[in-house]
């Protein structure tokens, strides 16, 4: 920490060390090209290596290709080894700063985290109602909605639909989680991003248990009506890794 100058006062340099994530020292970058079309390299320190690109921080934007590049570098690296993902847009002054500010002072903590995520992966499940389908079912089954329907666009009708939808969503969400929970180590449920979203969740699962989870998620999708699913993985443990969660 004390080796480097205060980062707040750093001059606007044209170069920096962009970090994607942390892997074991013997890993190599699986994907050649990263953010801002810069090559992906590894920087080792002790038992750790950082996946990095050397680039001008000003060249980093929230562009589709940069966001996807960050995500792809990590997903490719996580295919058969543990990866600790770092959030998009993290740039150190240079390689020395990365070592002095992260890899050296946090070495043991990061090693413990890598060991912890050995053999496990994150998968995400997103379930979304098909609007026509779910409204049709609500209109057919909910007495209040059925009664109010056809009397012009009214607030009462809309509120009744929203209430029926929310009740249905809560029970559908819980039903999905109930079936998945026995197969996974941990669950994170993200906030819904639309009123038609049933579930947006991440699960931490043993890689060996993935086929079993595939079968269960497949059954859930097959049993569901008026719902579509997105099922993604294996991913680095985006939802499950935080610094400070281990040791001092």
């Amino acid at each position, binding site marked *: 920490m004390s080796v480097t100058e205060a980062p707040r006062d750093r001059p606007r340099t044209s170069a920096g060390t962009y970090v994607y994530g942390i892997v074991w020292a013997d890993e190599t970058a699986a994907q050649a090209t990263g953010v801002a079309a810069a090559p992906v390299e590894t920087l080792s320190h002790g038992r750790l290596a950082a996946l990095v690109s050397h680039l001008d921080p000003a060249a980093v934007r929230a562009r589709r290709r940069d966001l996807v590049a960050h995500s792809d570098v990590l997903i490719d690296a996580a295919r058969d080894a543990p990866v600790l993902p770092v959030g998009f847009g993290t740039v150190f002054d240079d390689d020395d700063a990365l070592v002095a500010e992260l890899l050296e002072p946090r070495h043991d903590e990061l090693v413990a985290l890598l060991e912890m995520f050995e053999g496990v992966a994150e998968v995400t499940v997103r379930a979304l109602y098909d609007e026509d389908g779910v409204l049709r079912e609500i209109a057919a089954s909910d007495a209040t909605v059925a009664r109010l329907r056809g009397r012009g*666009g009214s607030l009462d009708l809309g509120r009744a639909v929203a209430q029926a939808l929310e009740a249905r969503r809560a029970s559908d969400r819980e039903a999905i989680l109930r079936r998945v929970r026995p197969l996974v180590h941990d669950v994170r449920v993200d906030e819904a991003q639309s009123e038609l979203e049933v579930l947006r969740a991440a699960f931490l699962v043993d890689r060996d248990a993935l086929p079993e989870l595939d079968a269960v998620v497949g059954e859930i999708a097959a049993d569901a009506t008026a719902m579509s699913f997105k099922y993604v993985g294996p991913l680095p443990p985006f939802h499950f890794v935080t610094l400070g969660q281990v040791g001092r």
Partner: protein
Amino acid sequence: VAIATQGTASNYLQRAPSPSGLADVVGLILDKGLVIDAYIRVAVIGIELITIDARIVIASVDTYLRFAEAVNRLDLTQTEAAGLAELRGEGSKDKSKGMIEGAKEAFSGDRNGKQRQRSGRD
């Protein structure tokens, strides 16, 4: 726009190796993973817009009106037939005009109508 997976055996859900939509990518890498001391993070241009865009207000008056309209537009075979029969028999001018337009949309232009309404949200 969602595509219904009715869940037939031929429609088996496959696990995808990586997220498909930009919103899903953003949901993973923006405020997740190791967040190292905030000052090290570059102020990435464009991030604000993406995160604000993704937030949708649930249970607002807008939502109620949209649901009401959508439910009224549904083509539920039985209730719709009853509604049309009723329409032919009686109904005030204003009311019947609205209902005929609603029914027409339900029978023909449903998809377009919905997408128009949703644009700006997706």
